[in-house]
């Protein structure tokens, strides 16, 4: 495990300006034995999650619905649903414990430092405003640009997420776009203020396989170009295997396996991870693929 930074970054610099070169060593996000409980019945639903995200690193969380993966992400984003509470461990963003953050500081952090995309892009967009204007608004508020500059930047962002005819898409309404296009718009909005961390929670689950691959390729591309760190959450181990340096396998609120992707895939220790792998090997494409396609051999 990487050692955690004990230096507290002063709050004023938490926003991490666009010009600041990310230190590849210092963690941008670290979770230490995070426990989350439902205060309504006192039940603990996440039983200790730990991982450290440094710039450019990708951590994957695999688990079925109800495994606690989404609630863990929501805790890191400071958007836990009502009556859910972090009841143990700590979450630090750039070395600052989020328990100490005021709502105003959270607002400053969202978008600028930590951002997220979820499974259902349509529900995060206003149906009566063209999508480009919604991206431009994020740019205006978070980057304090004027209307014209924000508009130009929004078109650039739409282009950066590989939307063909970005100028045209800018003026379109959510209902005019496909699921894959909407998810790209959401990613454009999420990266508009150059966050250091992007959490993608089942962001490709509802999409066709070819579109899913496009989005995953886009995330890989963004990470390489900008050094943005990613948390990729999926029920499919293979999706996580595409992209991640490190994998956490969660079941019923518990991390049953945690390690470098290669190790988890080639020498899974927990029987649940073994089940996930066996499913692919027996019923998936892996059954037919030439073993030489193995990334280990190819690298």
């Amino acid at each position, binding site marked *: 495990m990487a050692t955690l930074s004990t230096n507290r970054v002063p709050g004023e610099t938490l926003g991490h300006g666009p010009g600041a070169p990310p230190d590849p060593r210092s963690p941008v996000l670290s979770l230490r034995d995070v426990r989350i409980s439902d205060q309504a019945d006192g039940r603990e639903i996440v039983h200790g999650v730990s991982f450290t995200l440094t710039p450019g690193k990708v951590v994957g969380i695999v688990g079925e619905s109800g495994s606690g993966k989404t609630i863990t992400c929501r805790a890191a984003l400071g958007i836990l649903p009502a009556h859910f509470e972090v009841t143990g461990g700590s979450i630090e963003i750039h070395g600052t414990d989020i328990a100490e953050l005021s709502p105003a500081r959270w607002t400053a952090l969202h978008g600028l430092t930590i951002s997220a995309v979820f499974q259902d892009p349509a529900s995060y967009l206003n149906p009566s405003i063209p999508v480009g204007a919604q991206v431009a608004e994020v740019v205006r508020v978070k980057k304090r640009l004027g209307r014209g500059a924000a508009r130009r930047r929004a078109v650039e962002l739409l282009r950066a997420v590989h939307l063909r005819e970005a100028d045209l898409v800018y003026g379109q309404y959510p209902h005019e776009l496909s699921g894959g296009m909407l998810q790209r718009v959401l990613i454009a909005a999420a990266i508009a203020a150059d966050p250091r961390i992007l959490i993608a929670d089942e962001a490709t689950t509802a999409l066709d396989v*070819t579109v899913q691959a*496009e989005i995953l390729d886009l995330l890989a591309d963004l990470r390489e170009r900008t050094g943005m760190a990613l948390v990729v959450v999926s029920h499919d181990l*293979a999706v996580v295997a595409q992209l991640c340096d490190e994998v956490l396998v969660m079941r019923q609120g518990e991390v049953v396996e945690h390690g470098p992707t290669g190790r988890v895939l080639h020498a899974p220790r927990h029987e649940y991870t073994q089940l996930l792998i066996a499913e692919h090997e027996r019923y998936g494409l892996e059954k037919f693929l030439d073993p030489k396609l193995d990334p280990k051999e190819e690298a």
Partner: protein
Amino acid sequence: MTAELPQEEGSAGAAPGREPVLDVTGLDVHYGSRRRRRRALHGVSLTVAPGETLGIIGETGSGKSTLARAVLGLVRASAGSVVIDGEDVSAYDQRQWRGLRRRGVVQYVFQDPLRSLDPDLTIETSLAEPLLIRGVPFDEAAARVRAFVSRVRLSEDLLDRLPGELSGGQRQRVAVARALVAEPRLVILDEPVSALDSANRVQILRILEELRSDGVALVFISHDLGSVAGIADRVAVLYRGELVEVGTAADVINRPRHTYTRLLVSSAPTLRAAPADRAEREALRALLHA
């Protein structure tokens, strides 16, 4: 229970060797009024042999569900023919379709089992009904229901529950059992495992695999090559309403010919992803959109 050898005839008795259970020729389906006619399927031809599992892969809008609906007589084709177990059903009217369905030759399973199970009927009633309608005596129907419940690995305790009281995975196994009790020759499955978690997905796939040895033909429709590849004898790729490729799963995966199939194979998430695939996908997308 008694797994028959593939070369033997199915327990329904009427299987004439290699005669296809499903034979679709030149199928065209259009939607919409005459002014704004939209072509959903064009020139689709395929056959499914007894005991064969055919996987049909297609993305949103490819026409895969339209194909299922056309084979089940739920939408009318504008051209082409559908022959099920030797009967040309292309010109069947509603009454003839009802007759065919009642005989249980062709059955179906959808993604959401709540759609195919009556929420107000107990599991036992839902399962026994197709048999009772066909005149199977009550005791025999009850015995067969129990046999099929154990085949899909469900506890008999669930028989007097309602669909709403079961988990998604249990419900889907009930839907599979319901499709099987009538001992069909052909089962159409439209995204049967897409909504399930790993453990339930594996269980359903295992059950479907076992059916093959009983001589039941399956048409397994999915957007995901990865969920079909492992159990399909042959895979057909549907793209924009046309079948662009048909072959054994191994051939389609290792030697895809159509650009879309190549992109599909390259896009399917596997545990052996190679970083080089990204550039390949980029090139294929450019080709496909050109």
